[in-house]
């Protein structure tokens, strides 16, 4: 495993890997998101109507939950890549972290925005300072801090190192987000999918939801490969420019 990860450190080999993988991830993302949206918005049954349930409003779940999942998953990826870079000096670590964190920030923002719309309709409030909402807001700020720190130094290596340390520190927030609804009284409802008694979402709604989650994940890998390839190219240009200046 680690030998195979190190093999990807060779930029040429990474380029070949990206070229082979990209069509797959891109098509799978388009298929899953397309099918999931049509299924979720037009075919899946609405929730029980008010006053017993949420009616059509519940359909925002097909964007909100996949975004929330991605904002956690991408952060875990950034942290893992940062650990790889700091501990094992993996050359791709900083590049992957740098490429992934703006994508994660977008997912976190999308989570907050869709959640706010949903909350306005169902709870009667756009925003409340409960533990779940606040911890996700902190996740968004961690992403922003990570992006800012990456670019805060003239020497990119120093920025990457500082950002990697921040990424690792922020890992503490991930279990807090996940378990906030169990540890404290929150306005946000408890977990619906990963819970002890199995999912609390009906199968007819769970199927398109999982399609969307897979679609978002493939989308992330597509964008990650594209961005990492661009980062590698930028590094190479920088190195060439430096060499030309030195000559």
């Amino acid at each position: 495993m680690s030998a195979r990860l190190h093999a990807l450190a060779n930029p040429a080999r990474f380029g070949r890997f990206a070229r082979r993988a990209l069509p797959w991830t891109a098509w799978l993302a388009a298929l899953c998101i397309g099918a999931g949206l049509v299924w979720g918005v037009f075919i899946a049954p609405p929730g029980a109507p008010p006053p017993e349930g949420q009616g059509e409003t519940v359909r925002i779940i097909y964007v909100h939950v996949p975004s929330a999942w991605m904002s956690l998953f991408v952060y875990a990826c950034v942290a893992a890549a940062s650990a790889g870079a700091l501990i094992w000096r993996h050359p791709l670590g900083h590049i992957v972290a740098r490429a992934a964190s703006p994508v994660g920030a977008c997912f976190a923002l999308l989570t907050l925005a869709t959640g706010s719309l949903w909350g306005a309709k169902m709870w009667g409030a756009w925003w409340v300072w409960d533990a779940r909402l606040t911890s996700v807001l902190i996740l968004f700020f961690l992403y922003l801090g990570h992006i800012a720190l990456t670019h805060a130094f003239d020497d990119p290596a120093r920025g990457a190192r500082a950002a990697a340390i921040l990424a690792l520190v922020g890992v503490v927030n991930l279990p807090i987000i996940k378990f906030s609804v169990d540890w404290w009284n929150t306005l946000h409802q408890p977990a619906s999918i990963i819970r002890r008694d199995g999912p609390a979402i009906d199968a007819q709604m769970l199927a398109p939801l999982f399609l969307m989650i897979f679609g978002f994940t493939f989308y992330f890998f597509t964008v990650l490969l594209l961005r990492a390839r661009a980062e590698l190219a930028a590094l190479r240009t920088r190195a060439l420019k430096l060499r030309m200046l030195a000559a």
Partner: protein
Amino acid sequence: MAMKAKTRRLFFVSFGLALLGGAVALALVALQDTVTFFFTPSQAAERNIQPGQRVRLGGLVEEKSIKKLADGVTTEFRITDQAKTVTVHYKGVLPDLFREKQGVVVQGAFQPDRVFVAATVLAKHDENYVPKELSDELKKQGLWQHDKAKPATK
């Protein structure tokens, strides 16, 4: 025996994270009353909340407790966590989901007569998502669990 550099770094990072995790956990336990979004009526009784102190209370709206007061604008209802009950007065528009046995969070303060005057009422829904046909069917068979959703306490 000297550790390899990467083993030492792994040890450093793991130790640092464990330490940080412990510190954050301690801080959160200490701040429990601040982090929590609302108190249940029992928790409010335990903490002896003074009249006039702004707090949020959460619980289920008690059955047959909702009524309009004589002034025509104030709604009175009771929220309960099955152990303790609080009477709430609220002037204003109630959220769509507000109904008997629904989880709600009310924000306001106790009056000296222990009536809770709410400035805001928020609806809290549970984690169950079922389509309309299924809930109708379950109700017909008397198997509908939604109303018995666990109270806002844990």
